[in-house]
Structures are given as C-alpha cells and as structure tokens.
C-alpha cells in the first residue's frame, strides 16, 4: 500500500516535471525542472531496489551533467521571442512529426510489449543483497567486451573533442608553472649596498 502511494507520488512528480521542461519559457527553469525529473526517476528506481542505478543517476546526471547544462544556459543570452518566431508556420509539420513519434513510441513500449503480463514481477531480495556487486559482476564478467568497446568509443570522442578545440598554435601568453617553480631568489632580486651620500 505505502509502496504504491510512494510510486504514484514519484510518478506524478516525474510527469509534472517532464511536462514543465518543455513548456516553461525560461530555459534555466526548464533545466531545473529536468533536475526534478531526474530525481523523481531516481526515486522510482529506488523502489525497484536498484539503488546503484538510482544513486548513479543522481551522481552523474544531477551532480555533473545538469550543472554543466545550467552553466551554459545561464551564460547564454537567449532571446525567447526570437525562438518563438514562426511557431504558427511550422505548426502543421511539427504536429505531423509529433503524431508519428507518438505512434512509433506507442507501438514499441505499448502494453503488448511492456504490459504487466509480459514482464515478470521484480524479485524481492534480502537486506544484505548488494545491487552494486551484481551489476559489477555482470558488467565486468558477462558483458566485458561491449563494456570495453563502449569505453573505446568514449575515448575516441574525448580525443576528437579536444582535437576540434585545438585548432591553431597558441598565440596568447600563459604562465608556465614548470618554469615558475624553478625560479630562485637570485634570478629575480639583486641586493645592492648603497653607500650614504653624505655623512650626517
């Protein structure tokens, strides 16, 4: 009973936040509603006893990705009126695309594939059952090759992103710490004994 109540509270928050993400006008508010949506889905995962996934969702998406999102969104000078321009003109095309998307998603995740009768009920485990351990064994045992391939793909993406930003040789002046720490007092300061001009 209590579990169902908690589920509906989190699910309600999730749907509300997701709807607000795409309807609010202020992009910063939209990003903050997305954070709320992540939190609600983390709560739902906790109900499924998937505590590792729930905490990882909060840690990665809320703690890192959304912070960078907010960082960018706050710095941009977004003109809302400009974004809304041509809303009426594109509406028919957008409506068709939206309809196609909804039908496509509905056929894939509809009740014929993901109904309660299609999926076995999640098994309940004792308190000492470690979700993290099971996931680790699956990831680094059974699925080691897909995992390694994903890691290589990410590495390629990192190198590509860095290569794209390093277009030309650096023209600006920058401090060079390895040389700064080698400086000794004798290199910079010369103590000069100045004789007094006149005896008093």
């Amino acid at each position: 009973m209590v579990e169902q109540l908690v589920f509906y509270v989190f699910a309600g928050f999730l749907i509300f936040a997701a709807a607000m993400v795409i309807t609010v006008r202020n992009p910063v508010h939209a990003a903050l509603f997305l954070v709320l949506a992540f939190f609600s889905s983390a709560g739902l995962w906790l109900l499924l006893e998937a505590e590792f996934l729930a905490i990882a969702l909060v840690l990665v998406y809320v703690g890192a990705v959304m912070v960078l999102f907010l960082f960018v969104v706050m710095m941009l000078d977004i003109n809302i009126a400009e974004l809304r321009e041509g809303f009426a003109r594109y509406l028919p095309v957008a409506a068709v695309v939206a309809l196609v998307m909804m039908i496509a998603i509905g056929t894939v995740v509809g009740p014929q594939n993901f109904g309660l009768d299609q999926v076995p009920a999640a098994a309940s485990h004792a308190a000492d059952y470690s979700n993290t351990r099971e996931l680790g064994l699956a990831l680094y045992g059974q699925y080691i090759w897909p995992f390694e391939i994903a890691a290589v793909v990410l590495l390629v993406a990192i190198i590509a992103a860095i290569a794209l930003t390093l277009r030309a040789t650096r023209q600006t002046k920058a401090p060079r710490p390895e040389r700064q720490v080698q400086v000794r007092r004798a290199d910079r300061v010369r103590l000069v004994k100045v004789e007094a001009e006149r005896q008093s």
Partner: protein
Amino acid sequence: MNIVGFLETQLGAFLPQPVVLTTLIVLKILCIVLPLMGAVAYLTFAERKIIGYIQVRIGPNRVGPRGWLQPIADALKLLTKEVIIPTGANRFLFLLAPILALGPALAAWAVIPFGAEMVLADINAGLLYILALTSLGVYGIIVAGWASNSKYAFLGAMRSAAQIVSYEIAMGFALVGVLIAAGSLNLGDIIEAQRGGLSIFSWFWVPLFPLFVIYFISGVAETNRAPFDVSEGESEIVAGFHVEYAGMAFALFFLAEYANMILVSGLSAVLFLGGWLSPIPGIPDGIHWLLAKIGFFLFLFLWFRATFPRYRYDQIMRLGWKVFLPITIVWIVVVAAMVVWKLPPWFAGA
C-alpha cells in the same frame, strides 16, 4: 543501543509499528542534527579564536565569559534581521537556494557511522550516497548566483560551479581507491577493514597516503574554503554568490558551509583514519576517537585559512586537473596491485 530498544518496547505498547519506527527515526535525526548545529555555532567561534591567536590577537572576548556566548549573539542578530529580496530577483529560486545548499549537507550525515552500531541508515551503497549528495551542494550556489540578478553573485556562482565540478572528479577517484582497498561501499565495513594489529599504522592513511592528502585538499576546495575561496573572493567580487543575501537566508548558507566542513572532516576521519577505532592498543574504541579526529581536521581547515593566500583561478584549475587527477589515477592502479598481491599488513586478509 539499549536506549533505542527500550524506547521501541515502551512506545510499541500503545502505538502501531509504523508510528514507532517513524518516531524513532525522527528522534535519531534530531540526535544528529541538533549537536551538529551546536558544533557549527562553536566552530565559528573556534575559527575566530584560533585565527585570532595565530595572528597574535585575542579574538572575540566580550559576549559572556571569555566570549563563549558570541555565536549565540550572532545567531540572534541574524534571526532578527530582515531577509531582503532584491528587485528583479527570482523570488522563489532566491529563497529556495539556501535550502538547496543546506539540505544535502545535513542529509549526508545519515550514513556516517559514529560507532559500531551507531548509524542512522546502515546502507550498502553508503559511499555512493555520500558522493551523490555532496555533488548536489553546488545547486544552492548556482541557483543563488543566478536568482540574485546581480553580476557579482553570478560571477561567484560560475567560479564556484566550475571549481566544484573539477574537484569532484579528483575526490571521486580518491574514494574509488578507498573502495578498492576496503572492498565495500558500506562506511561501517570500511572502518572495520582498517582494524589491524598495527593500530594507527593499519589505517588506510598509510597505504593510500596520496589519496588521503588529495581527498582532504579536494574537500577544502569543495567547501569553498580558503585558499580555494574564489567564489567568495572579498577583494575581487565582494562576497560572491551570497552577496545579495541577508538575515536568516544568509545564515543558512553559513550553516551549510560549516556543516560541509564538518562533513568533509568526518569523512576523512572515517575513510582514512579509521573512524571510531582507537589509535592506541589496549584503549577501547568509541565515538570520542571519531570526534577527536574530526576536531583535528577542522583545525587543519582553520590553520589553512590563517596561513595560505588565496589561489589564482587558473592555478586552482591546474592543480585539480593536471596534478590531482593524474596522481589519483596512478595510485588507484597501485592500490589495485597491492590488493591483488595481498600486501601485508594492510591487505593480507582481503
């Protein structure tokens, strides 16, 4: 934990089970939060006194005997002040930000073990929970900076966000080292894994020494304390993200900062200095050892503030990305090798 058992039977006699459980949890939360608030108040006093003595002056000594009532007076002053909301500020987010800052700082205490059985929530993923919650503290700062509708506050928030995100990575990798060494995410098990014949030298600070140093320095950077306090930087951007806050709203930011300092000290003590384990063989373990270790780290915080000048912003970034991150990655490999080869005396039983 006889008191808990006693209360459970007494209350269970005339109340239904869920109500008894909720009451007990609320009482336990109060047992953690109220002393924590007292510790925050007297930490501000200790800070002013210690920095005062380091700078060869006396510090606050007017309110009460030897200045002991100074934090109470400060709290009363802040309580009676007006909460000013600037024009053009986003009212809801402006008032939400201090709560977002303080909430995670308090919630993280749920998994800190104070003794063998003294922990509010003995969960398996304790270390992950701590990482997730400490990464949320940055929202209070960003939201405060943006909602204030002020250039100084916004600059402070941006600096702070970049700094916290950078140091979180080094901090996370340091925790991965602890996780490999202990073989568990549960903070109680991590402390038990540090028990050994050498007492003080069997704790993790010896085999994980680089990670220990990096964890604590990253913790200082995460809490925006000197010498990493560019997000407040009085001489550059007045007071940074909380420049527009007054009264109780400002006090909440203050509470959050000091609660985070105590949290980082507590975590360093639990993860690297054996938590409530006794450093001297023959003397029993107990919560007083944990408190003494937390006090030691808090003193380091204050000592740093009185000693080091503020880092320049690019130096902070360089230290985080180019110094700490490579060292942690190398040392994780070293720790993994030590665990695999069961290096005595720390990992012989692992």
